[in-house]
């Protein structure tokens, strides 16, 4: 019998040398070993993380760089034995063991493009349940689960689906928002590269729930590997009759198409995304009408984030009650937190809502890799910069709203003492100017003015007047912007200024 060795084929692992490691192991291990290219476990500081099957379970080694592969290493792997890089049983790695992997239950365990492996690990159980339910019953399950959109706005998914179900139309669509533009986030990427069938299953279930037989995945072009993985997964699902006509032997059909963006952050905003899918400029449109009533080509459309859709198979398979037993208050289930920036143990951490930011960033992820932690930005480029005094905030949607911050898509970026928060505020304005769709003046022009004002503040020119100007500008952008691009750019700016005043005022020493 051949033994399995796992070498992740994830973008981050590959960038760290996983392809070379796989090739070299294949060469040196001989025919009694079968090298499987799995997804990443999401423990990026240990990548490339190699695993070998043993009687006790999978034994991990990492980080295994191409240079580490010598005779001693090969021998150790062959016997699943001791080596300085051995981490013991993968499942016992503390940072993995403490997680609640619901949506990411298969991540790194399976071969992402092996549909039998997917099925052997619970894949399509949710779909089979859904096929026994009426459309309304599926929507009810999603409602009961308490699932809220994971793309940033945290809108209740069940309510959105109910609207699409209730709206009469000859054609409806399911659109997956895979634009994942926020800095510090990679959960969508991990799902698409590491468990693409899970997203596909979620989209099929969404189709059954609202009576839509056509779906699109709108993927950012910055993720070349996710594109090839998804396209292959779609082809394989079609060949196995999970897409197309008579899915899983039923009388239902669902077709899925992958579309690629073209480097525009604003196309993550749902109306901009829909225009882009229609082949137009990605201009934001005013709501109402909401996409659930008038979306793609004016037809009722579910637009959901990758993780929202990929959470649905678990909910259908294990039951809404089980999913909603995780979390607290109005934040139910789990969130895939992404630890990024200057962080010791960066990667994907799926947890129920409710842990404190400090516990996650410091107790679990180890704090800064270099230097001392100084600021945390959470929720992407439109998210707040938080000082130490706010790090005890509980990670749930409502608690973050009370400190004028948001969890967004779950990206958490740690900065050390070298960061200058005035520079970060300037960048927020500059980013808005570069990525604004241009429809509203406060966003388009305000952000350019904001960049100039920040330049003067950083140069310590008439600080008081310029700070006042900055406040006015923020108010105008907040009130006069159609969407959150202009409206929420003020959040990183204001939080930086409020919580890190020393970087904005004359008298203080400029640190940059």
């Amino acid at each position: 019998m051949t033994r399995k060795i796992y070498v992740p084929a994830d973008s981050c692992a590959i960038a760290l040398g996983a392809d070379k490691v796989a090739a070299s192991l294949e060469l040196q291990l001989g025919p009694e070993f079968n090298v499987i290219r799995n997804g990443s476990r999401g423990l990026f500081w240990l990548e490339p993380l190699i695993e070998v099957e043993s009687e006790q379970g999978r034994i991990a080694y990492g980080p295994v760089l191409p240079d580490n592969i010598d005779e001693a290493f090969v021998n150790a792997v062959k016997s699943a034995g001791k080596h300085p890089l051995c981490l013991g049983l993968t499942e016992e790695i503390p940072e993995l063991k403490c997680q609640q992997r619901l949506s990411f239950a298969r991540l790194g365990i399976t071969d992402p493009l092996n549909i039998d492996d997917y099925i052997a690990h619970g894949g399509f159980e949710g779909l089979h349940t859904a096929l026994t339910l009426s459309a309304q019953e599926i929507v009810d399950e999603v409602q009961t689960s308490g699932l809220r959109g994971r793309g940033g706005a945290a809108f209740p998914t069940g309510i959105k689906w109910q609207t699409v179900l209730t709206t009469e139309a000859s054609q409806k669509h399911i659109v997956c928002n895979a634009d994942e533009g926020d800095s510090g986030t990679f959960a969508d990427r991990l799902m698409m590269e590491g468990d693409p069938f899970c997203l596909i299953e979620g989209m099929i279930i969404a189709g059954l729930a609202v009576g839509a037989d056509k779906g699109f995945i709108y993927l950012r072009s910055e993720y070349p590997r996710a594109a090839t993985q998804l396209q292959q997964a779609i082809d394989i699902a079609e060949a196995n009759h999970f897409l197309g006509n008579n899915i899983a032997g039923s009388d239902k059909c669902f077709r899925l198409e992958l579309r690629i963006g073209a480097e525009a952050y604003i196309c993550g905003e749902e109306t901009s995304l829909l225009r882009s899918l229609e082949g137009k400029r990605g201009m934001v449109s005013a709501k109402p009408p909401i996409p659930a009533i008038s979306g793609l080509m004016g037809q009722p459309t579910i637009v959901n984030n990758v993780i929202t859709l990929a959470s649905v198979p678990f909910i259908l398979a294990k039951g809404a009650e089980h999913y909603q037993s995780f979390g607290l208050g109005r934040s139910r289930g789990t969130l895939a937190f992404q630890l990024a920036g200057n962080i010791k143990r960066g990667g994907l951490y799926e947890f129920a809502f409710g842990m404190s930011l400090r516990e996650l960033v410091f107790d679990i992820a180890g704090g800064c890799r270099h230097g001392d932690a100084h600021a945390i930005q959470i929720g992407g480029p439109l998210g707040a910069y938080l000082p130490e005094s706010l790090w005890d905030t509980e990670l749930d949607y409502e608690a973050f709203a009370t400190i004028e911050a948001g969890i967004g898509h779950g990206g958490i970026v740690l900065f050390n003492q070298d960061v200058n928060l005035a520079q970060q505020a300037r960048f927020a304005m500059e980013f808005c100017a570069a990525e604004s769709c241009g429809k509203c003046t406060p966003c388009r022009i305000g952000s350019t003015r904001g960049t100039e004002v920040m330049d003067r503040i950083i140069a310590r020119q008439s600080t008081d007047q310029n700070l006042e100007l900055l406040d006015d500008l923020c108010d105008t952008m907040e009130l006069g912007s159609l969407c959150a691009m202009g409206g929420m750019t003020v959040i990183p700016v204001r939080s930086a200024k409020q919580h890190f005043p020393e970087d904005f005022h004359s008298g203080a020493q400029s640190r940059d």
Partner: protein
Amino acid sequence: MSDDQLKHALAELAMAHRDQLGGLMPLLHAVQKQYGYIPEICAATVAPVFRLSTAEVDGVISFYHQFKSRPQGKHRVQICRAEACQANGCRSLEQFSKDHLQLDYGESSDDGLISLDSVYCLGLCSHGPAVRVDDELYVQVDNEKMTRIIRELTS
């Protein structure tokens, strides 16, 4: 290739996407892949196929950072300049790379080998600074690693 041949080829590509929902975006990707940029006559040539005006097609091309209306270098080097990479020192990598290549963002080298661009996040945010060269990804790129990457492209 003569202008007529180019027009013909573009029209043929456009026909392949004509009946696709929102086919203009996939078409523009196909054109850029084929020619490395979107030739000037593309808009006027494909507009009638999609029942659009030339100005409308030009509007779409200019909206997206990825679509280029000038010829690009053989290799595209993109440096991530988003926040998580800033936390790992991408600002100095950006400056070093611009100086080293003697290019600013959006520019291409005279020998037609390299185009330099920025990118906002490659999803490698725990291991920044991150760099993309065509479809290859690099992490924890310091000045030395960048020098090596560029040397490999130029040798």
